[in-house]
């Protein structure tokens, strides 16, 4: 498979959550929040800062926001992570239990909360860590927690108090995981200050990284990330302040308030995520509306590209179209092009229709986190372009229809004028002459009866001539044979009267609706007249009629032929009009020295 000539599928999010699963998860989330509240209520810890409500909110909020994102579809992956975080935070909320084991599980889980939270902040809103720096930061936090926090669970008497999920101070439950008989002094003296310092540093690094991401981000990402940054700073500050206050040994109530704020920063952060996601939706909807307006006002592929570039705030955008059946990707000028590989600083977002690639938007890698938006913009512009093409086609065929209708009417009028002329110049004049001679014969009757008899006899020949003229006039107006006997007989008779040697080949004689027979007949006659006019030395004119689903006729001669570009006669336009009026098509094949063939096909509905 040659690279570049085949579509690169865009990394897609997991499918949006189905309603039954969502209801089940929501019920589970509510249950977990209730359990967390009950655990807090049953414990002996002071409830002065409404501990139970705090725990319930901390568990319920991430699950609710996560389910929203999961259901919304565009950020289903992030939503799934957030729901998972809700489960982890439930474990941490067990810290408010007075039971040694539950309390210890809660405290250990509390340390892991930080790793997940930083992952969420850096992976928002796609649910993926896109840069090496982000992955490094998460790894650093995980390393600090794994090296300096988790192992101390086995060698410490008690966990530092108070924590964000508990309100106890000196009367906290014991550490249920303690393996040693007594805690080494370096734990409290070295490790705890060290890890608190490191944790604060890592948190500050995350805040800096987030601010940096916002600075270099597109307008869409900036709007989405800013609310998260606000709460991330708040939480980092509160954690740092918490560490400092704990070291400084301030009043218990101040400490309690500080840890409460730290904990409440968690649900607040979830609200930040929610606000970011909603701002994403509003911004993209606004952009699509503006794009729709722009597309309506401007046309042309170059302007379309400019509009897409402006909407995506990426001036480097290129558009590619997929040509099926081995055509591969082509650029705006129809030149073959290859899509950039997935790991370069350019990305290709492919737009699919019924699992078939139709187009691709090639853009800066900075847009990697908003590919669903790129896809929506691309698909919208594409659909709009399709519509415009369709509308243009309809418009042009309407114009064509109007023109051909006008030409048919004009031709009919001209025909009527010709018939009127022929009737007056031929039939009427002869009758007038007859009337005069009849008058003369009547006068002559008195003086010269024998001469009058002769004259009357000659009048008979004049009547015959008038009859002859009328008959040929009538035959020229409409061939009676066509209605009575059908196309082959009518064409054969026309061929008999042609000045050129003409043979008629009929493959499957049949009758068709009269408008179809008439169109085919007059088209053949016109073609025959054209041969007589332009190729009077042609040797064989063949008219072939056949039926193969459609009625097909062919008039070919071995005359000198002509360049198709030079062909611009009323005759050809007449033939085309007649045939297209019954839904058929006319094709003329000719080149100098190769004769001319006129082929008409008319679809016949049975």
């Amino acid at each position, binding site marked *: 498979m040659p690279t570049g000539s085949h579509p690169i599928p865009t990394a897609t999010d997991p499918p949006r959550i189905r309603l039954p699963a969502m209801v089940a998860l929501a019920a589970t989330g509510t249950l977990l929040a209730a359990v967390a509240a009950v655990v807090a209520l049953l414990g002996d810890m002071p409830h002065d800062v409404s501990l139970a409500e705090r725990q319930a909110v901390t568990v319920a909020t991430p699950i609710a926001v996560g389910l929203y994102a999961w259901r919304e579809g565009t950020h289903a992956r992030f939503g799934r992570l957030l729901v998972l975080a809700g489960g982890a935070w439930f474990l941490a909320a067990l810290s408010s239990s007075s039971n040694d084991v539950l309390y210890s599980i809660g405290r250990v889980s509390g340390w892991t909360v930080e790793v997940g939270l930083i992952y969420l902040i850096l992976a928002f809103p796609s649910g993926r860590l896109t840069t090496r720096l982000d992955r490094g930061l998460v790894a650093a936090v995980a390393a600090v927690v794994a090296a300096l926090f988790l192992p101390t669970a086995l060698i410490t008497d008690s966990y530092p108090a108070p924590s964000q999920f508990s309100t106890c101070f000196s009367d906290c439950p014991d550490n249920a995981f303690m393996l040693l008989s007594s805690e080494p002094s370096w734990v409290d003296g070295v490790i705890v200050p060290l890890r608190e310092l490191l944790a604060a540093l890592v948190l500050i690094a995350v805040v800096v990284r987030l601010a940096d991401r916002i600075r270099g981000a597109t307008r869409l990402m900036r709007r989405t990330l800013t609310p998260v940054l606000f709460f991330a700073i708040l939480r980092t500050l509160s954690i740092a302040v918490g560490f400092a206050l704990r070291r400084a040994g301030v009043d218990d109530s101040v400490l309690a308030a500080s840890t409460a704020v730290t904990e409440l920063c968690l649900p607040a952060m979830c609200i930040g995520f929610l606000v970011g996601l909603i701002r994403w939706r509003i911004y993209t909807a606004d952009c699509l509306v503006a794009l729709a307006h722009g597309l309506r006002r401007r046309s042309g592929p170059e302007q379309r590209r400019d509009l897409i570039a402006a909407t995506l705030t990426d001036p480097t955008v290129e558009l590619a179209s997929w040509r099926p059946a081995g055509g591969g990707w082509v650029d705006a000028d129809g030149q073959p092009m290859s899509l950039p590989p997935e790991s370069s600083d350019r990305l290709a977002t492919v737009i699919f229709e019924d699992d078939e690639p139709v187009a691709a938007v090639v853009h800066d890698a900075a847009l990697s986190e908003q590919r669903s938006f790129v896809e929506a913009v691309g698909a919208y512009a594409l659909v709009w372009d399709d519509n415009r093409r369709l509308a243009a086609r309809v418009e042009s065929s309407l114009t064509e229809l109007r023109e051909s209708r006008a030409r048919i009417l004009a031709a009919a009028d001209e025909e009527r004028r010709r018939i009127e002329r022929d009737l007056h110049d031929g039939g009427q004049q002869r009758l007038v002459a007859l009337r005069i001679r009849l008058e003369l014969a009547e006068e002559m009757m008195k003086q010269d009866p024998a001469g009058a008899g002769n004259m009357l006899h000659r009048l008979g020949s004049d*009547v015959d001539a008038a009859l002859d003229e009328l008959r040929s006039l009538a035959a020229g107006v409409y061939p009676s044979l066509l209605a009575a006997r059908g196309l082959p007989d009518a064409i054969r*008779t026309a061929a008999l009267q042609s000045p050129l040697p003409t043979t008629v080949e009929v493959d499957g004689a049949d009758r068709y609706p009269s408008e179809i027979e008439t169109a085919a007949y007059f088209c053949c006659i016109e073609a025959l007249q054209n041969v007589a006019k332009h190729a009077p030395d042609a040797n064989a004119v063949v008219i072939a009629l056949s039926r193969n689903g459609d009625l097909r006729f062919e008039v070919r001669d071995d005359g000198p032929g002509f360049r198709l570009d030079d062909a611009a006669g009323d005759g050809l336009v007449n033939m085309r009009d007649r045939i297209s009026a019954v839904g058929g098509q006319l094709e003329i094949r000719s080149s100098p020295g190769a004769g001319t063939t006129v082929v008409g096909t008319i679809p016949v509905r049975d």
Partner: protein
Amino acid sequence: MAIRVVLAEDSLIVREGLHQLLTASPSLDVVATYGDVESLLDQVERDRPDVILTDIRMPPSNTDEGIRLADHLRESRPSIGVVVLSQYAEPPYVLALLERGSDRRGYLLKERIHDRGQLVSAIDTVARGGSVIDPKIVEVLVEANSGAERSPLAELTPRERDVLAEMAQGKSNSAIADSLVLTKRAVEKHINSIFTKLGLAGSEDVSKRVKATLMFLAE
């Protein structure tokens, strides 16, 4: 005994004219006149005509009712002769009329009407089992064919061409001899020569000869 004739013509003026013309001939007995084919067929049992003189174009479709009537009678009443009066000089009509046999069939252009002799003689020929084709039709065919270089007609002598035209009208050998002022023997000689040159099978039956000749010309 007079020939029993039934007239079918939708135009009242022409019908009355024809009626007068034919009534004046003692050899004919006009038993009925009709304005359309259907009522004619209804009464054909009662009228027992020898020959039907019909317009080609009549209601309901105003196309080729006369020829269809002849076609119908060929099956149901083969003994009735049909003379079709037509305003069309196009050969396919004639070929259609003769398609299922040329005996007892005639095709005359309407302009022959004024010549009572020609009309009565055509009715007489058809009543006796022969066929009559208007000379104008044969003229159209011969003219169209003699233009083509490769047509076998080009090999015919002018005299043979005259004989061919007479033959195609349904004339008997002696009638051809009369109209061309030839001996009957000379006419037979010309006819044999024509048949050889055109590759047609010779036939004594004048009706069959008409059809063969017309088919050849119309090809």
